[in-house]
């Protein structure tokens, strides 16, 4: 049996290629059924996300899986095989297992450590299972990959710190306020970025959202989006003492929140801390506001710096994660070897039993007539001899199976007992 993974990812193929190879939700079931129908294929799973399309396969020994997968991909996605082949990578056996583990642990992702890939992999697994494309080896392997990913996540900081500007803002807010429940947020200038940041804050527990915008209608729209309140753009400064977090992203060409404003605001708040996020370019908040006590101002560059620091941290965690994956690989290989040893044990037992019965048949006539008790004793005697002979090799086979060089021993046993192939 051969295991392989064939596919494209963000490193091997540009988006123009990936988008043509991607399977949408509706075409996946049909593709899985088609995959099962192909000759020589045993099990299969198709993972299709915006950054990767991968087909994991187990096939019978001797089947030319490489060409067959390329053909399958070209046929189902209606592209020429010659066109797609240069973009494809293929991993087999050990390498394929390693690749699968790395993908599941999000080490192969564009943003290393991003959590979505595991969910996508699980969905692909479930779908393949529903369509009967998984049975045995690949099933076990995928389940193992999920627990490896879990282990990486819990034992390293790979997913710990935000690597997007809007998440970084939420994390900083947590660093300032602890819990965000009941915190009030004001959005100054309704835009895509501020909407995203507000969405994250709201998901983290911030309750009241105030929106102020130069064009009233757009502000109202956004306020409705968050069940928030609209505040008059000309008077929003007066509302600031009430809010804990301000997200500024208006298109104003000059500062709209000045140091003197904030000084009064923070006094009115009795020095309760305030977090100002200025994601507008040109900036909306006078930078010297950050010199005020208990006011924390982060502009877009500051947030990006935080993101960059976190990314460096992730790189470090990724190294730890690789070590975990290698450890898990070794365990997996040991298990696989332990499985390989079973056929050897079975054929050894069969071989000895065959010897016993044939020898018994050959010599039986020399004994003359025997009572049923004697017959039984003879049978028991011979069985006991072959069991005692087999005991040593079998227990040693089991032990050796989990050792790195175990396969030498297995080969030797096969040769010694003439077990054939």
């Amino acid at each position, binding site marked *: 049996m051969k295991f392989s993974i064939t596919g494209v990812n963000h490193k091997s193929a540009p988006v123009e290629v990936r988008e043509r190879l991607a399977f949408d939700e509706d075409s996946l079931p049909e593709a899985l059924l088609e995959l099962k129908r192909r000759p020589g294929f045993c099990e299969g799973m198709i993972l299709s996300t915006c950054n990767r399309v991968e087909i994991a396969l187990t096939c019978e020994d001797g089947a030319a899986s490489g060409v067959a997968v390329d053909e399958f991909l070209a046929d189902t996605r209606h592209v020429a095989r010659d066109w797609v082949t240069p973009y494809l990578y293929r991993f087999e056996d050990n390498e394929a297992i390693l690749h699968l583990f790395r993908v599941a642990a999000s080490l192969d992702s564009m943003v290393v450590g991003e959590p979505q890939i595991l969910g996508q992999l699980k969905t692909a697994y479930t779908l393949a299972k529903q369509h009967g494309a998984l049975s045995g080896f690949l099933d076990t392997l995928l389940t193992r990959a999920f627990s490896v990913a879990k282990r990486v996540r819990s034992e390293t900081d790979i997913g710990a710190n935000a690597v997007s500007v809007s998440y970084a803002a939420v994390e900083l807010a947590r660093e300032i306020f*602890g819990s965000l429940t009941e915190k009030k947020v004001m959005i100054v200038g309704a835009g895509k970025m501020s909407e995203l940041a507000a969405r994250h804050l709201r998901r983290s527990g911030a309750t009241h959202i105030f929106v102020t915008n130069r064009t009233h209608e757009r502000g109202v729209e956004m306020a409705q989006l968050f069940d928030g309140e609209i505040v008059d753009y000309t008077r929003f400064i007066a509302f600031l003492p009430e809010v804990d977090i301000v997200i500024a992203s208006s298109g104003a060409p000059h500062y709209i929140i000045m140091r003197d404003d904030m000084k009064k605001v923070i006094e009115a708040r009795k020095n309760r*801390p305030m977090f100002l996020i200025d994601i507008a370019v040109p900036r909306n908040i006078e930078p010297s506001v950050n010199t005020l006590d208990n006011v924390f101002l982060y502009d877009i560059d500051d947030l990006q710096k935080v993101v960059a620091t976190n990314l460096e941290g992730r790189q470090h965690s990724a190294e730890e994660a690789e070590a975990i994956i290698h450890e898990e690989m070794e365990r997996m290989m040991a298990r696989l070897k332990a499985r390989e040893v079973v056929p050897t044990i079975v054929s050894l037992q069969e071989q000895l039993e065959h010897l016993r019965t044939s020898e018994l048949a050959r010599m039986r006539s020399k004994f003359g007539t025997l009572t049923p008790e004697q017959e039984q004793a003879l049978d028991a005697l011979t069985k006991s001899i072959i069991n005692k002979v087999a005991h040593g090799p079998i227990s040693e086979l089991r032990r050796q199976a989990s050792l790195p060089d175990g396969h030498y021993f297995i080969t030797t046993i096969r040769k010694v007992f003439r077990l054939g192939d």
Partner: protein
Amino acid sequence: MGIFWLRIATALYGVGLLHAMAVLLRRKAGFLKYALVAFQAGIVLHLVAIVELTMEVGHLPVDNFFECATVCSFLIAVLFLFVYWRYDFASLSVCIFPLVFVMTQVGAMQTPMLSWPSPGVRSAWLLLHVMMILSGYAALLLTAVASVFYLIQERQLKMKKGVKLFSRLPPLGTLDNLITKSMGFGFVLITLGVIAGSTWASIESGTAWIKDPRIALAFITWGFYLAMVFLRATAGWRGRKAALMAVAVLCCSALTWAAHVGLSQMLAK
């Protein structure tokens, strides 16, 4: 008779003290309305006491520390009432109520009270005083440490170095909560400890104790604590100022504690 009215006034001011403690511990409005009624009644009796004492000695009684404290606390109380009426400055009560209570209570000790009913009560009383003061110091220590953490965390957030560096420290909000709570508890414990201690000293050694500079140091420390609690509750002092203040009060407390070792034996003589 004057001292009797003064003691009743002290008891009425005690309602105000309880209000201030409730505000500090629960961060709620307390029961200002009732406390104010009691406070005003206390002022009336306080005035009665001063008038009677004046008639006894023939002039305004400001001859010793106790009499000065009595008159001074009366003036503070009247001033507060004026400020409250004129500027609606209710949060000042958190500071004034305990101050007026402690000063009037000390003033009322100019005529020593009864003696100890039994040696057991005497030592239990002293133990209670020591335990409350020490627990108060422990809370103060916690406040100071949390304030320094707050300061560090605040600096790091201001420097914008990224989240990873300060993940070991709790968020500012959590520290702030801890500071507020430990400071409130510490203040309540130390105030009760000061009241218990001064009563003990008064019963133990009449009026002589007040002249000891170490006693003065204790009252000054308490005064600093009162100022710190007040600044935090009303002006919301946080960060650098709050950390410095907490450390200063802690040092002051340590001095007081060191000075008080062996004081009880001396007072007992």
